[in-house]
Every structure is written in C-alpha cells, then in structure tokens.
C-alpha cells in the first residue's frame, strides 16, 4: 500500500505504557486534540512525514482489553474494527509484558494488521528484566521492535520499522486454542455467522468467540439478523457453564492469559530483583496517617494556583475584554452611526457575554493545568487512595474530592474537573454537590452583609455559611445517592501508575485543547443568557428602552412581582431590590452587591459602598439581622451562575442542568425559610410548606430514580 499517499496508524496500548510519549516523539507539535463523537473520550491525532510518505497517527485511549466495558474500550474496538487504520501499532510496557500482551492477543484474534512495539526497554532493564525480542516475534508471528522514548536513535528506528511494515501489512496467523467444548461451539456457530461477518468485514472466528462471551453488540447483531435465536444461544452457553464450571467469558480470558503467560515465561528473563523507587515514595504518600496531611497540602496547592493565581489574571482578562468587546464595540457602533438600542444590545448584551466567557479562561486554564499535572505525575491515583474511605460514605470514589475543593474557588472549573471520574453516575453526583461548595464570587456578598449586621462576628458568620454549604452538599449527595442514582456504587479498582516527571509539552497541549473545548461548549450558552438578561434590565413597560433606569426595567418589575415569594425569608415587599439582586446573581454571584448598590441609590438612598458606614446603614433599614442571614443562606444555595449551569448542561445534559438549578433554588428557599421562621418569623404555615417541599423533592427524586435505566449510568 506504499502507493497510497496517506497511511493511517492506530496506536493502542495499556494505560501508562508510555504510548503518548512515543506519539509525541513521532509527531512533535503536529497534533489535533478533540473528542470522539458522542462521548467524552479524548481523540488525539498527529502527523509525521518519513521517506516522502505522510503518516497519520490516531492515538487511541489507553485500554487493557477490547471487551467494551468502558467508553475508552468501545471507542478503541470500534475504530480497530472499522479498518480505517492501515496498521494497528500495539505499544507494550516492557516491564510488565504478561499483562500488556493480553491486549496483543485480542488484537491478533481480530485478524487486523498488527505490529508490536516494546516500549520502555530502558525501564525493563533497570528493573532487572531481559527480553528476547526475536523469540517474542516468532511466538506472536508478528513483527516486534524494542524502543525507549528516551533514546534519540530509537525514533528513526521506529519510523523505519513502521515504514517497512506499512508496505507489508502483516496479519498474524496465530490462532488461540480454547477447550474442546468452546471449540466445538465455535465450529458449530461459525458457519452460520460467516456471511454476516463478511458483510461487516470482521473475522468470523473472532465474531463467534465474542458471541460465546455474550458480547452485547455481537449478540444483538446475531439475534437481530435472526441467524440464531436468543434461547438457542442461552441454552448452549448454559451447557458450557455446566461442564466447565465457569462462565465462557472467564474460560476464554483464562486461556488467553494462559497463552500470553506461557510466551512471557519463555521470552522474559529476570536477572535481578529491584525494589522500585515509587514503592518508597508510596510508603509515605499512601501512609494511613501521613498520607492525609500530604493530600491536603497538595489540594491547597491546587486551590491556590487555580483560584489565587487565576484570580490575578481574571482582572486582566476581564478589563481587557471589557475594553475591547463592550466599550470598544460600543464606541465603534456609535461611530458608524448605529442607533443606541442596537449598539447597546450588541455591546452590553453580546459583548458583555463574550467578556464573561473570557473572564473565566484563567480559572479554567489553571484548573486544567493542575489536573493534568496531578494526573500526569501519577499523584491522582494516590489521592484517590487516600480519600477512598471518606468519599466512599457518599458512594463516590476518592478522586471526587478534587472537584469539591476546586468548587470553593469557582464552580465552573470544578464541574469540568469531574471529567477525571470514570463513570457517569459518579460525575452526576459530584456535579450535583459542587455548587454548594461556596465559590469565591459569593464571598463579597457575605463580607458586605456580615460587616453591616454582625461587625464583631464577621469571620464566624462567613465560616458558618461555608459549613452550611458543605453540610447541605453532603446531605444532597446522600439524597441523590439513595434516590436518583441508586445501583452499584463504582468500585475502586485501578492500576497505580508509576510516578514520572510531568511532560510539559503534553500537558500544555492538552490544557489548551480542553480550554478551547470549554469556550466552544459553554461559551454559547453564557453569551445567550447574558444577552437575554441585558434586554430585561434595559427595557421597561413604561418608557421602552432606557438602560439607565434599572428601577423601572422589566427585571425590576419581575423582582417586584416575585418578592412575595421571599416574604418567608424576611424580605418585605418594599425590599424588592433584594429580589432583583438574586436575578442578577444569576449572571455572577458577586453582581448581587452591584445591583443592590445601583437600585438602592436610584431609590434616593445613599449607595451601599462597603467602605462607608453610612452606606451600611442603608442595608440595615431593609433587612433585619435574621433576614440578612437568611438572604445570605439563599445566596449560598440557590442556582449557580449561568456559566456553571451551562457547564453542567454541556457536561451531562440540558435536563440535568435545569433539574439541578431548580433543586438548588428550592433547597435554598427551604433552608432560608426554615432559618428565618425558626428564628424570627415563627409562622407554622411557612415551616409546613418548607417541610412539605422537602418531602416533595424526595418523592420526585425517587420517581426519577425508578425511571432511569441502571446500566447506562455505571458504564
């Protein structure tokens, strides 16, 4: 196939086999990072040129096997079966050959052109292992090369090896043998599957074996085409289980391992036994007592970099974007003679939306950077270990702690950080809890109110709000665990990767790709929402378009209309600006302060500039201390800002995002009403309504839980 202009190679291998390092060494910076259609699995592609030939590498996700029990495995298997790749390049970690060869055996069984690259030969050697490559190649009946990504000469050697094999496209003739009972069934079924296999251009023996393993996809193909019926299949498989005393899929796995272990014994020699350095590090980092403070120190670092350093850049990005997209765009439109209403909606609507998206870039970038560092260094798996027992109480894996910590800074990157979790159920529960970790934008609101109402206990008041947030988050997590997302909690089982120095280029490329993805996905929703809010705040029923008169706007009218809903938390009807503040808080929680400031001052009072004590007294004339605390409780818990809601929508689904926003708002009402009524209002009707709503939430969640398909969540 050397006449072809472009050759496509599919890179596949176990996680931590050094596949991406090899990929980077071959392709350099020429790579594209995106997503496989319909799933959150990352798709990485890269190109290089060798001897006038263009090579395109598709770097498949790291997997242990091709039995599609995870999205990663499914994507990989579908791609290999699609035959879009001319050659499958199977990369193996030389220091752990036996387990890595399990995947090799499965690839060979598919009867697609495969070559084997033994990676990290240097590491195997320092671990005291000696591998006979020629012998291995003879056993597998497939070309094998040994390389180390650290050795510069190995890159051209590998390119040469791939060049030779793309002109030959070797398919290994090796056939793995199974016990007679299984072989007999293969012979019996293979004939009838022959046509279908040819039609799908897959190997018929492979297809029959997967049918025997009860592979969902193959089984549905066979039964849909009425080649065999379900009962027939079940009867035969039951029969096998009776004879072999084990399910067919386990017997097949056992034989495949048997074969690769046999090869492993023949080609790998252990010369000396070495205790790896990572064992020594682990005895400290994973220590039952020492591990915890180390974990918290690392989390503090993640938080500090994401939020504090991120915050430093936020002002820059925000100001610059404001100058360009709001002021600049506005002046430009005015200069070209656009009517005021047009320039306002474009600049203060769309322009302000773009400004908001841009202002999130620093947080999101630093968070992705820190996450990549944690993952690439190998520490993430240790963090999962340390927090496993604690998070296990909520039915969540230890890794779920990381997004929670990030949530104290900003909810948006925290929602994106749930991508490190393996299954959808864990991600949904975590995303559900994250907004209740009080984000940084809510702090100015707390600070202002606490200073006005509780000047001697400011710190205690703010701290209590954070604690309430955590408490409600834990209760909510528990609630959704026992109602909506029942079913088997995800069990922790994973390989502990070796520590290694994080690869700067790899991390930067991936961080950049993830940030772009965020801008593309969440950006649209944010811009649309900001645009709609700008319409409501600048139009009034009375005198039409008047952006300077917020008190008469549709937004203010809506605020006046909705205020009675909040009388239960101590907001009287003449305090409608407090309700409008909640509306604008939907943009960004910190804008609550600005809104209250603007409306109170337009109403003829002095603005509530936090610095002046005269300003603080304005607040006191509108709120009682208990009402002020209830209002803060509401701000803490009600729906997160538009950016966070859109992130949840894009990460899970639109209905999930809406349900979460609704849940949070209702819970905020329940909690703040209960607080205000118990402390000051003493109205049994409100207390009754609040408790009734809480019961209603539980009932609705239980109902949703019953209607959700179970297996879809854990996959």
């Amino acid at each position, binding site marked *: 196939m050397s006449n072809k202009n472009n050759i496509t190679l599919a890179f596949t291998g176990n996680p931590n086999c050094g596949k991406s390092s090899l990929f980077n060494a071959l392709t350099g910076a020429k790579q594209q990072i995106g997503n496989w259609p319909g799933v959150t699995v990352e798709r990485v592609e890269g190109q290089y040129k060798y001897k006038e030939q263009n090579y395109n590498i598709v770097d498949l996700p790291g997997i242990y096997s091709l039995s599609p029990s995870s999205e990663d495995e499914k994507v990989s298997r579908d791609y290999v079966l699609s035959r879009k790749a001319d050659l499958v390049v199977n990369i193996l970690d030389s220091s752990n050959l036996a387990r890595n060869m*399990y995947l090799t055996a499965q690839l060979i069984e598919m009867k697609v052109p495969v070559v084997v690259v033994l990676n990290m030969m240097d590491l195997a050697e320092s671990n005291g292992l000696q591998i006979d490559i020629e012998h291995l190649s003879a056993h597998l009946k497939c070309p094998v090369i040994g390389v180390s990504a650290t050795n510069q000469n190995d890159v051209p050697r590998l390119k040469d090896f791939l060049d030779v094999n793309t002109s030959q496209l070797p398919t290994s003739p090796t056939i793995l043998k199974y016990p007679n009972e299984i072989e007999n069934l293969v012979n019996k079924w293979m004939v009838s599957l022959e046509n279908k296999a040819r039609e799908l251009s897959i190997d018929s023996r492979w297809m029959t074996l997967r049918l025997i393993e009860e592979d969902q996809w193959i089984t549905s193909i066979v039964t849909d085409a009425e080649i065999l019926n379900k009962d027939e299949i079940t009867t035969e498989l039951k029969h096998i289980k009776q004879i072999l005393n084990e399910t067919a*899929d386990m017997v097949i796995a056992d034989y495949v391992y048997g074969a690769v272990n046999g090869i492993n014994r023949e080609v790998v020699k252990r010369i000396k036994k070495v205790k790896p350095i990572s064992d020594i590090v682990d005895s400290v980092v994973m220590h039952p007592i020492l591990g915890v403070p180390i974990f918290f120190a690392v989390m503090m670092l993640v938080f500090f970099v994401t939020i504090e350093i991120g915050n430093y850049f936020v002002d820059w990005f925000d100001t610059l974007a404001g100058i360009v997209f709001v002021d600049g765009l506005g002046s430009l439109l005015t200069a070209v003679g656009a009517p005021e209403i047009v320039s306002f909606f474009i600049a203060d609507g769309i322009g302000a939306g773009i400004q908001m998206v841009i202002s999130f870039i620093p947080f999101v970038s630093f968070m992705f950077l820190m996450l990549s560092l944690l993952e690439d260094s190998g520490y993430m798996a240790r963090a999962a270990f340390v927090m496993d027992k604690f998070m296990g109480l909520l039915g969540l894996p230890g890794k779920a702690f990381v997004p929670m910590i990030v949530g104290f800074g900003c909810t948006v990157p925290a929602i994106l950080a749930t991508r490190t979790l393996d299954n959808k159920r864990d991600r949904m529960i975590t995303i559900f809890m994250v907004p209740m970790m009080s984000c940084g934008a809510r702090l100015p609101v707390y600070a202002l109110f606490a200073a006005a109402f509780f000047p001697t206990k400011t710190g205690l008041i703010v701290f209590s709000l954070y604690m309430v947030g955590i408490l409600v988050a834990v209760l909510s997590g528990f609630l959704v665990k026992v109602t909506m997302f029942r079913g088997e909690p995800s*069990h922790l089982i994973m390989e502990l990767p070796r520590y290694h120095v994080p690869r700067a280029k790899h991390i930067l490329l991936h961080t950049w790709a993830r940030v772009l993805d965020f801008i593309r996905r969440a950006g649209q929703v944010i811009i649309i929402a900001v645009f709609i809010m700008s319409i409501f705040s600048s139009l009034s029923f009375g005198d039409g378009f008047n952006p300077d008169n917020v008190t008469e706007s549709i937004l203010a009218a809506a605020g006046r209309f909705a205020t009675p809903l909040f009388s239960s938390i101590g907001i009287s009807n003449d305090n409608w600006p407090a309700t409008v503040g909640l509306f604008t808080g939907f943009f960004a929680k910190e804008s609550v302060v600005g809104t209250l400031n603007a409306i109170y001052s337009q109403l003829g009072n002095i603005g509530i500039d936090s610095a002046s004590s005269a300003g603080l007294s304005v607040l006191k004339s509108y709120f009682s201390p208990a009402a002020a605390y209830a209002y803060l409780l509401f701000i803490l818990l009600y729906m997160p800002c538009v950016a966070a809601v859109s992130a949840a929508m894009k990460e899970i689904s639109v209905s999930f995002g809406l349900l979460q926003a609704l849940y949070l708002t209702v819970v905020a009402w329940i909690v703040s009403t209960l607080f205000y009524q118990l402390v000051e209002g003493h109205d049994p009707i409100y207390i009754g309504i609040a408790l009734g709503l809480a019961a209603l939430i539980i009932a609705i969640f239980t109902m949703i839980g019953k209607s959700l398909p179970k297996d879809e969540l854990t996959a």
Partner: protein
Amino acid sequence: MSLSELEPGKCAIVESILGGKYLRQKLVNLGMIPGSEVRVIRANKMGPMVLDVQGSQIMIGQGMAKRINVKQK
C-alpha cells in the same frame, strides 16, 4: 478466605470472583483471573488495598476485595 482478610506481605492464589460481568471484566483486564497470584503490598482497614499482580500495582477497594476468594500461599 476473602482477599480483604489477607495481610500485607502475604501471597495468595485467586480462586473465584463473586460479582457481575462488569466487575469481573475489570478484574480480568488487570490480570486478576482465577488461578493468578497476588501479593498484598499495602492494606489497612482505613482504605483500599494495593496488590502486586503480575508485576504491576493494582489498587482495589475493600468492598471489591471482599468479593474475591483467595487461597493463601
């Protein structure tokens, strides 16, 4: 005995796995099939176990370890 009862430093052979297809598949992927040898590197009741399975380190939660029957060597 169940894997979760095995003490650090001890070796055992996996005898059987009690669990659904999804769970068994994950174990098979990591080389933990009936007949394979495991060695406990780290274990305490506070968290998951760390095992040596065919030369790689596998971390496994207590809940899952309880569902694996082993025979101590």
